[in-house]
């Protein structure tokens, strides 16, 4: 595209070499593939992936279908590798480790409580739980600033928690109470918090990706058009493997790369779109490869290993923040529960479930921290206890909170307080000289 007509990309600095940032990023499981660079890095990544995928797949005896190359890198590999290195080269500090552990425990405990509350009739409709995928939410979102945006899917409770929305507000929302983060008007699949820049909660496949791309567009627009020079806000778009077969995914990879938008596309590939196996749905199951096809780095990471996810996330978020454009990250993960609480979950092989259950990301992090003397068993226990209390408190708070009042039904349809272009003084809003400045408040 002619540079004169494109949304000017020239104001960005040249991308830094993706593999040169830290010594750890040479780790073969985390290498980026950048189509603009020479090919050796890509071929080594392909080779290592294929080998690892095949070896773990054969362990799983999942080779009945030759296209089925599903398994991810075993978590133990990384732990062993890291153990071999000196303790000064640990992937995480004690403080960071405790924060990450607490966030993952919160996600897990919160979702377990949701299941209980759902079966007790305290929440209703579709409730999609995140169990098993915590390493992705925590690994990415805990690296963000408050001004950075997160766009999620219907499986959004834990993204909200990681972004800092209080457990009380999320639980209350699920209970349909007026103290919820959307006063009970959003529900399980539509979590919003402007304060935390959690901008949805999108219940349709692919719907959140353009919105996230638009959020990233607004960062660039603020910097380049509105001259807010320090606006380096990054947007993370979370979605699943099923979405990667949807047109909006491709449309937005294209435009994000074309306009070099500060966004990271985070694929939470949990291998199943409800009951549709990823291997049965996608011609080429290696989703990360679609990044290079659109001129952006694609990276494949073990989504059951929060430390690996963090490493990749750091690099991708940094890249976006520096104005070097988008990244596609495929996190291979697994959901420990059905698609939603209404899903009987009969299609997934028990052996497959057992395989991933053994790779629980929380257990793995705990092991890493204890083996590397980053935390004692007692410290971690204390965190678990604290989180149990947080979740209990959230339930109590939600339970005691009032239901929305009858009058709330008709509120918030429009930002415009009376909805009909009429201002608080009873005059038409457009007659107000301040109209262009956006004077609406609810």
């Amino acid at each position, binding site marked *: 595209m002619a540079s004169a007509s494109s949304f000017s990309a020239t104001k960005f600095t040249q991308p830094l070499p993706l593999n040169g940032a830290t010594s750890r990023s040479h780790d073969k499981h985390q290498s980026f593939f950048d189509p603009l660079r020479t090919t050796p890095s890509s071929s080594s990544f392909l080779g290592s992936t294929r080998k690892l995928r095949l070896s773990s797949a054969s362990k799983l005896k999942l080779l009945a279908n030759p296209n089925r190359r599903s398994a991810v890198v075993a978590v133990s590999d990384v732990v062993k590798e890291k153990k071999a290195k000196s303790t000064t080269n640990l992937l995480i500090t004690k403080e960071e480790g405790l924060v990450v552990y607490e966030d993952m425990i919160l996600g897990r405990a919160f979702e377990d409580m949701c299941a209980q509350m759902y079966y007790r009739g305290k929440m209703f409709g579709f409730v999609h739980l995140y169990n098993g995928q915590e390493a992705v939410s925590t690994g990415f979102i805990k690296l963000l600033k408050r001004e950075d945006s997160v766009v999620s899917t219907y499986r959004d409770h834990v993204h909200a928690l990681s972004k800092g929305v209080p457990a009380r507000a999320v639980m209350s929302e699920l209970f349909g109470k007026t103290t919820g983060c959307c006063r009970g008007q959003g529900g399980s699949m539509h979590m919003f918090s402007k304060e935390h820049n959690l901008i949805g909660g999108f219940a349709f496949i692919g719907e959140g990706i353009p919105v996230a791309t638009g959020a990233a567009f607004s960062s660039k627009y603020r910097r380049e058009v509105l001259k807010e020079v320090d606006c380096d806000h990054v947007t993370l778009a979370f979605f699943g493997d099923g979405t990667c077969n949807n047109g909006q995914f491709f449309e937005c990879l294209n435009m994000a790369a074309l306009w070099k938008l500060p966004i990271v596309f985070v694929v939470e590939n949990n291998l199943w779109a409800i009951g549709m196996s990823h291997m049965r749905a996608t011609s080429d199951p290696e989703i990360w490869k679609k990044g290079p096809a659109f001129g952006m780095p694609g990276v494949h990471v073990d989504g059951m290993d929060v430390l690996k996810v963090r490493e990749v996330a750091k690099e991708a978020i940094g890249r976006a923040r520096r104005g070097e454009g988008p990244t596609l990250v495929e996190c291979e993960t697994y959901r420990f529960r059905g698609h939603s609480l209404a899903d009987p979950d009969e299609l997934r092989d028990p052996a497959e479930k057992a395989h991933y259950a053994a790779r629980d990301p929380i257990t793995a992090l705990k092991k890493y921290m204890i083996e590397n003397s980053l935390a004692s068993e007692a410290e971690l226990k204390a965190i678990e206890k604290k989180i149990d209390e947080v979740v209990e408190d959230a339930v109590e708070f939600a339970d005691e909170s009032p239901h929305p009042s009858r009058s709330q039904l008709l509120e*918030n349809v429009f930002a415009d307080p009376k909805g009909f272009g009429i201002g608080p003084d009873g005059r038409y809003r457009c007659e107000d000289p301040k109209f262009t400045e956006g004077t609406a408040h609810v």
Partner: protein
Amino acid sequence: MFGIIMQKAFGQRIRPAVSAWRGYSSAAKEMTVRDALNSALDEEMSADPKVFLMGEEVGEYQGAYKISKGLLDKYGPERVLDTPITEAGFTGIGVGAAYHGLKPVIEFMTFNFSMQAIDHIINSAAKSNYMSAGQMSVPIVFRGPNGAAAGVGAQHSHCYASWYASCPGLKVLAPYSSEDARGLLKAAIRDPDPVVFLENELLYGETFPVSAEVLDSSFCVPIGKAKIEREGKDVTITAFSKMVGYALKAAEILAKEGISAEVINLRSIRPLDRDTINASVRKTNRLVTVEEGFPQHGVGAEICASVVEESFGYLDAPVERIAGADVPMPYAANLERLAVPQVEDIVRAAKRACYRSVPMAAAA
């Protein structure tokens, strides 16, 4: 695309109504609807750097219908964005940008293509303020030509007014004249909520007189307010967009036969100005609704319901509802003409409402 060429021939149909109306005005200045839209966009972009235009062919091509002519040169490629042909993608991008306080104007080359993106118009834009309990307002405008074009077949000739107007959270505007186009587009861009702005390809080249007030950069038309284009006492005719011209033409003919028709230009389909409609019906006691869209669950149906609910006792005749034929738009020129309301249809319906004898329809 062909519409640009076609409209010259097709536009003849409504020109008499316009020139007749022009006779009443002594305004010195005239302006095409195209220039009205272009100047409104220009002024709002100039007034507020958060406003940007995005869509297919809006930049280097200067707009498929030249509505955005000159804007790329003036505001640069950062604010006049040529997108790939990806309606779902760029519409959603607009919505996401609006979440963060920008004011996107999303152009659909025609509203027929908004079907590719209706998920974002309804689910991402219209519902977000409610779902987020007022945290996420979406100040965005979706605009482009809507309704029956000429000779382009079923998929490119379709009025979406009643579709979008049935969705809470959206404001739906349909300008007729240059005054409407300028005033409503400026109001839409300034509005803090998502607005669907339904233009008409066949009106773009039409010229209307404009007052000095209309040309002022602060000019704005209130959303939710209809305009009485012509006062009358015997029958009320409601119309929007191109059909306002037809209704005015019909009113001319009716006047010669001694029937005084009041023509209401709805301007805003949602919110609908029920007050103005009902006040008029209470005066004339008769109602004819006109629209190009499909009859079932249409704008006319809604107006009829409103009048039955609020002014039933004032009605002296059954409500006459004129709409497009209940078929996908045919291609053949003679069938196409039959499928959309014509001036004669309005005249005939108004006479029926006034209990004048009507010869059996021979137009077909």
